[in-house]
């Protein structure tokens, strides 16, 4: 492996980090005023990152160049897919943020810096091949998010969200570190492929140590993807954080968390699947049930979407249990579909926030489709995709994921997934009902903003045709 090849896995992260640093400098020397330039810059960086990932995916078929930096990182198909999803989420987040920031008086350039830095941490997670890198990537994405969650300071909700996120995040990180320490103690390595190689040969004590360590790692990663019972931070933080940040967290953080789970559990602990399948299955079941059930009663759109994100974490965990050939493509595609639908939905929510003060309650959405049919249609599509109604991407995603899990021998869980899907239809429909069938006393009209519209249209189109295209193009063989 040449030196150059070693850098390949880091390319997306490097692009994002370098871009973020450049933006810091630009922000420092920028004349006070609108941040249009920062948006273009951030968008450009995200798109370059996207181009890099796309180029890598196109140029490096198969398993890619393998590990780099002493086995710390690795570029492979899942890494490529995860990076792609992450960068799409980032680009959409950039698109939908500006309007909100301007309307809420938060229009400061640092926002985009932190967005890109968080994205850099996430892309690092996608290629992490060592538990230490996993930890660093986790911190790298979390610290900017702590700041972003509190970005609407001194709004009380934003501050509360930031502190809760921070305290619980730090708490969870501690579990992660202790878990890594135990794994290291038990196996003598933190490198994931080495760990996978040694698992079978471990003596009883080592197995127990690695097991305990993995359990603690699962706690931390479960916390990040918002799996029950580690999910409780999610609704509060989602509700309190500025809406574009919530969108970014819901989509990209979920993806990063899944990236960590994929890398640690599917790759590092893959040979011990029969051990961790049980608890992950239990978590998946609990997460699907709790997320969907509690979402039923949420009167607040953002909070509802938080529980929705919890529920989807459950489905994604189901994907982890899938049969080898199907699980990974299933999870990846699910993340992609989920990202588009969630980002799109939040984009509409951002549009609804308007300049007159944000009202995330569902009543505020009443009758919107009458005044803005485009927004209404888009939201309908996103909700359908989140439910999993054909022909949206969400349907194909669920189909593949369920098939994977069924093949993996988890038919019962799949059926539970199906039942909870029906439950979920209720709360997603509430949004549709409000927008299409509701009437409000004080009617709100979504703001018109080209960036926002672009993000909605892109997400909508992707939600509508992406599923079909992806499956058509053999998306399963990722």
């Amino acid at each position, binding site marked *: 492996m040449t030196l150059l090849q070693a850098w390949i896995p880091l390319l997306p992260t490097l692009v994002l980090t370098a871009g973020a640093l450049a933006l810091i400098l630009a922000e420092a020397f920028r004349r006070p005023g609108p941040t249009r330039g920062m948006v273009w810059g951030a968008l450009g960086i995200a798109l370059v990152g996207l181009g890099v990932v796309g180029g890598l995916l196109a140029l490096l078929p198969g398993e890619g160049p393998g590990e780099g930096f*002493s086995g710390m990182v690795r570029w492979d198909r899942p890494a490529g897919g995860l990076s792609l999803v992450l960068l799409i989420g980032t680009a959409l987040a950039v698109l939908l943020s500006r309007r909100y920031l301007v309307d809420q008086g938060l229009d400061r350039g640092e926002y985009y*810096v*932190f967005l890109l830095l968080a994205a850099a941490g996430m892309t690092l997670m996608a290629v992490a091949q060592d538990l230490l*890198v996993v930890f660093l990537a986790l911190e*790298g994405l979390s610290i900017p998010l702590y700041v972003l969650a509190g970005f609407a*300071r001194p709004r009380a909700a934003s501050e509360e969200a930031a502190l809760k996120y921070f305290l619980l995040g730090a708490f969870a990180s501690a579990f992660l570190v202790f878990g890594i320490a135990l794994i290291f103690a038990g196996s003598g390595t933190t490198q994931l492929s080495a760990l996978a190689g040694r698992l079978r040969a471990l003596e009883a*004590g080592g197995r127990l140590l690695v*097991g*305990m360590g993995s359990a603690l790692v699962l706690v931390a990663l479960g916390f990040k993807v918002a799996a029950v019972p580690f999910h409780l931070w999610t609704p509060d933080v989602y509700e309190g954080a500025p809406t574009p940040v919530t969108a970014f967290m819901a989509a990209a953080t979920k993806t990063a968390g899944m990236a960590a789970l994929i890398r640690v559990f599917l790759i590092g602990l893959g040979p011990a699947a029969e051990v961790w399948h049980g608890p992950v299955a239990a978590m998946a079941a609990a997460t699907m049930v709790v997320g969907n059930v509690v979402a039923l009663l949420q009167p607040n759109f953002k909070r509802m979407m938080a529980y929705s994100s919890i529920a989807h974490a459950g489905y994604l965990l189901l994907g982890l249990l899938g049969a080898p050939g199907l699980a990974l493509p299933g999870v990846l595609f699910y993340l992609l579909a989920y990202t588009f639908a969630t980002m799109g939905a939040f984009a509409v929510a951002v549009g609804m926030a308007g300049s007159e003060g944000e009202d995330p309650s569902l009543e505020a959405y009443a009758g919107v489709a009458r005044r803005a049919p485009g927004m209404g249609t888009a939201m309908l599509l996103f909700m359908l995709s989140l439910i999993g109604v054909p022909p949206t991407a969400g349907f194909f995603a669920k189909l593949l994921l369920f098939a994977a899990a069924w093949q993996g021998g988890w038919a019962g869980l799949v059926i539970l997934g199906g039942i909870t899907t029906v439950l979920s239809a209720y709360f997603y429909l509430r949004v549709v009902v409000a927008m299409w069938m509701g009437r409000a006393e004080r009617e709100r009209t979504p703001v018109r903003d080209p960036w926002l519209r672009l993000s909605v249209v892109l997400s909508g189109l992707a939600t509508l045709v992406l599923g079909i295209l992806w499956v058509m193009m053999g998306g399963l063989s990722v």
Partner: protein
Amino acid sequence: MGEWIAFLVLAAVAIATALGTVAVRNAVHSALFLVLNLLTVAAFYLLLNAPFVAMVQIAVYAGAVMVLFLFVIMMLGAERVSGAPGMRWQIPLALAWGGILIGGILFAFLQAPMELPPAGSPPAPLGDPAAIGGRLLTTHALPFEVTSVLLLIAMVGVVVLARHHGSGG
């Protein structure tokens, strides 16, 4: 035998200071207990043939970080929090779950002791700062760089968070 005595004494101090950190009412005292605890652990590090990490622990952690803590506590006057402690069932439950978790882990360790080479004959350069420095620039160059970026992020983050709202640009 000396190793045992050292271990036991240090362990007792570590546990005591940890309990102190958790239990005392005053946040300043708590922080001071934590400093003690960190120092104790640094002593462990020395015992475990890791002088470099011990130094870092003392300098960065017990020194810089904890000073920061104390500074903030003092600045905010947040030695004690007001209001009645709610959620009385929180404490027994926390003890119970924590007990189960730690009990489980301990049980695991004691059930299946590691069959590892006895301490005492470690490879020579193990705790050597030079060796660590070398590794940081070779095998662990990536994490090293990442941490540098992290520190930068933290720095900018603190600036953003600390800046008075509305001061603009």
